[in-house]
């Protein structure tokens, strides 16, 4: 392997690895999670045990996993990239046939102790697989059609399975994350221009197909699209959530109504306020200033990651870090544009804030991989 030839001896060993971790990144992640616990406590009306405590326990477990993943050498993770991808595919097939049905979609496997969402795991596995692929692939071939077609297949396979659940939000994120890794790997920009043109055409086709016998999406997805385009048309039905979310965010004003003082949240006008819509309560109680503060924290995470990717000379590590960063960014972008009424409601949590085990664990594992790449970077 290329890495072994490249000044392996310079990588730290033993507990010295901890010293080489990016502690600033971990600090910011913990700070964001801390805001999440505060909000879960507030949303539960001052009940610590309802959501805040389980979420802290999960974060603790996830943080331990993060450290474990970080201490493992990055080349061992590269070896596990394809096996992880295969396991992810098997799990997706498993939920397709045996998964739990929740909210109209098959998304979960109940392991008794924890409810697993394979599509979340698949995102990380996909990033690893693609990063490994481009580490293996000769630079000169990156933009050759055959070698572009193969990673597209790797992306499409899990995407189709996730779309069948059906889970539009995660499907879009899988495609976007995969595409971002390909872009970072140096695939010619013409391919992306072609894909964007194709997607634009498809969107047009999807909207045009509504009501025809060859309708491409479920009715509920169309309703969400229409709700997004004109929420006021159905203020008590489909548009209610978005309208109430905007009222909550807007009524917070500059500095918010104060901790635990959000009326929209406390009086239950907000939907899903401890999961996907947690930002609405945060915005209501801490206002514009609070929202910008949170955006800065998120931006710091992304800046630390991109910096780490740029400073790393190992191709797998670079692509992995960029993939994880883009994935993290997509969570934020999709969730926030959703709750602020800029995008359809697609059920994507706000990373590290929303209540939920699967997403938090997967995000922390992904950051474990980033830390491993930082610790074991070639020197």
């Amino acid at each position: 392997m290329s890495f072994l030839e490249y000044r392996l001896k310079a990588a730290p060993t033993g507990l010295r690895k901890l010293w080489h971790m990016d502690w600033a990144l971990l600090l910011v992640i913990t700070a964001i999670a801390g805001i999440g616990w505060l909000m879960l406590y507030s949303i539960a009306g001052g009940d610590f045990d309802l959501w805040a405590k389980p979420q802290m326990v999960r974060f603790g477990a996830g943080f331990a996993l993060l450290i474990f993943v970080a201490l493992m050498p990055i080349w061992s993770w590269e070896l596990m990239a394809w096996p992880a991808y295969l396991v992810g595919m098997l799990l997706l097939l498993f939920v397709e046939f045996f998964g739990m049905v929740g909210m109209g979609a098959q998304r979960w496997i109940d392991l008794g102790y924890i409810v697993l969402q394979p599509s979340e795991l698949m995102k990380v596995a996909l990033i690893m697989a693609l990063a490994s692929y481009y580490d293996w692939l000769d630079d000169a071939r990156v933009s050759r059609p055959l070698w572009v077609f193969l990673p597209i297949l790797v992306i499409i396979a899990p995407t189709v399975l996730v779309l069948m659940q059906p889970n539009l939000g995660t499907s879009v994120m899988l495609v976007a994350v995969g595409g971002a890794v390909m872009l970072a790997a140096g695939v010619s920009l013409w391919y992306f221009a072609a894909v964007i043109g194709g997607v634009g055409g498809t969107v047009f086709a999807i909207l045009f197909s509504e009501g025809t016998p060859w309708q491409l999406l479920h009715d509920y997805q169309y309703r969400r699209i229409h709700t997004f385009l004109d929420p006021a048309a159905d203020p008590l039905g489909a548009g209610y959530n978005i309208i109430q979310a905007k009222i909550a965010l807007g009524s917070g004003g500059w500095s918010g109504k104060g901790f635990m003082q959000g009326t929209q949240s406390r009086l239950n006008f907000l939907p899903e306020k401890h999961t996907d819509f947690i930002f609405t309560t945060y915005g209501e109680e801490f206002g514009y200033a609070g929202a910008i503060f949170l955006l800065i924290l998120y931006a710091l995470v992304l800046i630390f990651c991109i910096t780490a990717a740029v400073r790393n000379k190992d191709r797998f590590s670079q692509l992995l870090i960029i993939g994880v960063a883009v994935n993290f960014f997509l969570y934020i972008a999709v969730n926030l544009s959703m709750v602020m009424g800029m995008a359809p409601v697609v059920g994507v949590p706000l990373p590290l804030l929303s209540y939920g085990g699967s997403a938090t664990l997967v995000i922390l594992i992904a950051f474990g991989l980033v830390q491993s790449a930082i610790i074991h970077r070639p020197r």
Partner: protein
Amino acid sequence: MARNPRNIDEAAARVSRRALLLSGGMVAMFAALGSRMHSLGVTDADQYRLLAEENRVSIRLLPPARGRILDRNGKLVAGNEQNYRVVITKEGARKADGGIDAVLERLCQLIPLTPSDVVAAKTELERQRAFVQVAVAERLSWKDFSKIAINSPSLPGVSPEVGLSRTYPLDHDFSHIIGYVGPVSDKDLEGIDNPDPLLMIPRFQIGKIGTEKWMETSLRGKSGTLSVEVNAVGRVMRELGRKEGIPGADLRLTVDADIQNFVQARLGTESAACVVMDVNNGDLIAAVSSPGFDPNLFVRGISQENYAALLENDHRPLANKVVQGTYPPGSTFKMVTAMAALKAGAVDPETRVTCPGYYESGGRKFHCWRAGGHGTVDLERALTESCDVYFYDIAQRVGIDKIAEMGRSLGLGVKHDLPMSAIAEGNMPDKEWKSRVHKKEWRIGDTINAAIGQGYVLTSPLQLAVMTSRIASGRAVLPRLIKTINEVETPIAPAPPLDLGIDQLQAVHRGMFAVVNGDHGTARASRVADATMLMCGKTGTAQVRNISAAERETGVVKNDNLPWEQRDHALFVGFAPAEAPRYAVAVVVEHGGGGSAVAAPIARDALLAALTGGVPPLTAYPVEQQTRMQSLFEALVLRPPSRPAITKT
């Protein structure tokens, strides 16, 4: 495969460039998110803050207590009583073993509930949100109410509550004057441009008829508001603020409840009306329409059979005959004819007319009520003995238009403004009226009929009372029903003097005095013995059927031999004391027979009651009548006389 370090550096640099490209996209997205947050939380914050407040705050109306209605001495006529009711909520009841059904079943064992009550409550519970209170039973007795309170542990979701509802303690006595309240209907809201939000409260009670209706704005008061914080499903979380409303104004009527009660009892089962009016300020001391009905039935929701019984009764208990009933005034109109002729100078009090028992005009014979005639009569005798021919004659001399003008100036054919329902205008015909309404010319026979209050002339008992008051006082007094609003005296309408000479008025008074007190007076049987309360008056008997020439020849059929609805109306108008008139009275007994026999005794009792403030003393009656009066009064079912005036609480 192996790579040389130079390739690695190149590849890493390319990844870094692409990473920066991606970062550019991320920065753009963050900028978009930040600016969206800015537009929500800063630019449009005020608008969203308002929307959040609208979400959160719900304004509830606090209905004010309805104003009370009192009699002139402060006796309660219409008030608000505590209404013990039972309400139930779905969220509470379904916690019970067996759920809502079991709770309602247990409730049935405790208080009297009909199966339809239970079904209605269940339907309402289905419809409403879990925390909304649904009324199961209203107007419970204190005993039943306590049973619910004691058994509340076994009745989850059920709570006893106290509300206010309208009550009329003097039930029948004031039913026609004050009317009753009922839940607001769509019909009530019609034609109101900007209705009081109170009217939008389901089952809010408003005046439906009578004073309750016409004084609604004063009685209702102004609503208060309660602002509460509600959650997304509308449950009240806490009270934010309370602004008390203004209770409705208390009204004091001019009517004296004791006298009203006495007159009501005195009219008994007759279909009749009696008005007692203060001749100086127009106060209505009593305004009784008989038979009455119990307005409380309407407040509580009258049953179909009770309502049908009221509608089918041929004595029309729902009609307020005082203002609504119009009758030919008969001979009680003769003062109008006389005063018109006196004022016009067509006759003077000493003018004599010969009555042969009929009056001939245009080849037609108009009969006097006394077939043999009265001989030579002047005004006093014409009134005393009610000679028709005298009035035929003087009416011909003065003409109908002058008579109608006098009638209107005495308040006939005029709609008097009182807060009562269905006030009739009556009819005071003249030539213009007949050509307008009947498209026919006025004929001599019309004048002759009108001269004795028959034909086209129609008057209500109220109008007769106004007429009598004006004759007695010589001033154009107007009737008044509301004495005070919130203890502020309502203005008494100015009563300008009638345009009549004092001697002319006195001539009419003399005639009316002799009607009651003269040896040949038609109402001599109803004279007063007490010299301080002597009565003046005039009897009237109004035909309700035509007497044919054939019947006149074979002898007029006696009233007692006719079916009730064909008998004559008995009328009497009068005032007392004769020396210094204080009260006027008008009595109409529908199909009662003769005015002297039926209406005059009632009028005397009513006047004496008004003058003495209760059941008249027997000493006021002629000695030979005292035993009869005593037994008559003893047979009356009266309320205990009111205590000294109740002060406003």
